[in-house]
């Protein structure tokens, strides 16, 4: 289940935030916000994606650039609020 979520988030990030000609390898530990792949203004749409797909409500206070910086961190955050 955890792996499925990671794959789903990674796929979404690649589809929505990485252009074909970017030639960036994005993995579970790739920095997203701190590397500029996902700009901080666009985090809102990533948050909405997680809330809709993972059926979870993420408080704005927790949805920080640090918490969204890698796919692994994002999934940790989601799991914390799913629990």
């Amino acid at each position, binding site marked *: 289940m955890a792996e499925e979520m990671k794959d789903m988030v990674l796929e979404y990030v690649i589809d*929505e935030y990485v252009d074909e*000609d970017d*030639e960036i390898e994005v993995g579970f530990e790739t920095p997203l916000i701190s590397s500029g792949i996902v700009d901080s*203004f666009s985090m*809102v749409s990533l948050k*909405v994606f997680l809330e809709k797909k993972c059926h979870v409500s993420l408080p704005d206070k927790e949805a920080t*650039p640090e918490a969204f910086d890698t796919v692994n961190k994002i999934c940790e955050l989601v799991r914390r609020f799913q629990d």
Partner: protein
Amino acid sequence: MSNIGSYEKRRENFSWDIAKEVLGWKEGEILNIGAMCSDRICAQGKGDKKALIWQGFGGRQKTYTFNDLRVLSNGYAGFLQNLGVDPGDKVCLFMDKIPELYISFLGVLKMGAVAQPLFSAFGDESLEVRLFSADTRVIFTTRKHVKKVRKIQDRLPALEKIVVVEGNPDKLKEGEIFFRVEEFPVEDFNVYESGPETPSVLHYTSGTTGQPKGAQHAHASVWGQALTSSWVLDLKDDDVYWCTADPGWVTGTSYGIIGPWSLGVTQCVLDSGFTSAAWYRFIQDNKVTVWYSAPTAIRSLMRDGEELVKQYDLSSLRHLASVGEPLNAEAVIWSEKVYGLPFLDTFWQTETGSMMITNFPGMKIKPGSMGKPFPGIVAGILDLKTHEPVTEPGTVGLIAFRPGWPSMFREYVKKPEIYRSKFVGAADDAQPAELRVDESLWYVSGDRASFDKDGYYWFVGRDDDVINTGGHLVGPFEIESALVEHEAIAEAAAIGKPDEVNMEVVKVFITLNPGYEPSDDLELNIMNFIRKRLSPLAMPQEIEYSKKLPKTRSGKILRRYLKALEWGEEVGDLSTLEDD
């Protein structure tokens, strides 16, 4: 002692020439903002002083002196000349808040071209509209953002050169130029002899109808920007100043470049997104003394609480100010409690170019108030119907100003009728050059307010449908136009919805084309569609599906009706509403 001293005395004895005294500028010197922010400061013996302390993602830091600004901006200016750029040409700066943005801005102005900074999070459609409107000839961008330019360049006949100024030079497409200014510093450059009316900076601003309008500023704006930086931001020679705004918007140029650097003040830039902890650490590490930020950020800091503040040494701070949207009283009171200093609200807009109504150091602060007009600014509240000045305190009307202040925008690019429409009492054939100096007219800002018996102004709201999200104006028309390009959407209306942190966020009402049904996937698809085409700011945070949108009998969607329902306000006259 604050720079302004007594507000009342300053009002009594005011002249914009005081700005020249503050800057030590003598008649006969070149009035060129690029040179005034670099060459002039070096000529004052401050060449080795830090001008820019920059920090990016991952804690990367770079520091530039005023002499660095001078030779590197010369490098950009010389490069543009060699490229064949002429004075008056528009050069777009499309990049994140990196040093190249700040320094190339000065370089563009030094060679007489017009700097057109655009918010780097803009999507390709937002970019295209603004570049097309301005007939932009050259764009400076980065490896990260050049792909958006590539998508639209075929539809921009005036765009001749795409210059990548940062990042990896590999993989550029044919015709693109890579230019790293550090490799080409120029010791001596013959600065363009601009005058007060020479066009300088072009910022785009959104309106209720039509595409964004280009508000053109001139080099004389520096008088207003420098004097307000001195009297309102209270900048002094030994300050370390931090303006959190992005130069893609007017605050980021007027007070993130021109104001502080024309005064020779050191400034910091943090380009790594927002977190409260990162911001406090930045203030602590750089010993920031004056901090100019926005209500959205301040409310986010409030949300993260007082305990976090205590983990950092913020004792260097001595003065705080805010801009972008009204600063609520709670935020003013909170900041005084936790930082020991209130955030002072300032009111102005893209068109005004510099602060108009503000709270001043030393003045009694009424939390929630916009403050009082800057000395030299004649402000008034006009009756909503008659447009006559109101005299009764507490009466809500339109905020208006007598034209003639130096930072005032000179025109809307290619839109003289819209420019004229901003002036109450203007003759039908009046030209922009006449309007902007005619002190018998009123320039109407588009915002509503009242004043109290003590002369303090109190913001009420916008007089139109423009959405103010996080201090950035977003035009509903732009969003609606983009939405109906989505294959699933038949009709759309965009409004601002109240939001605790951002003041407003975008909410849209849509009707779907046959064959489409509401779903989570569709909603996300629409959100990302707008985010990529326009910008994350324009992205709807709520989508409401509707069978039918309310319209006038002539078929125009009644946005104000939807907004009134959303805000729980009176819907007003519905006599033009289409029969159901």
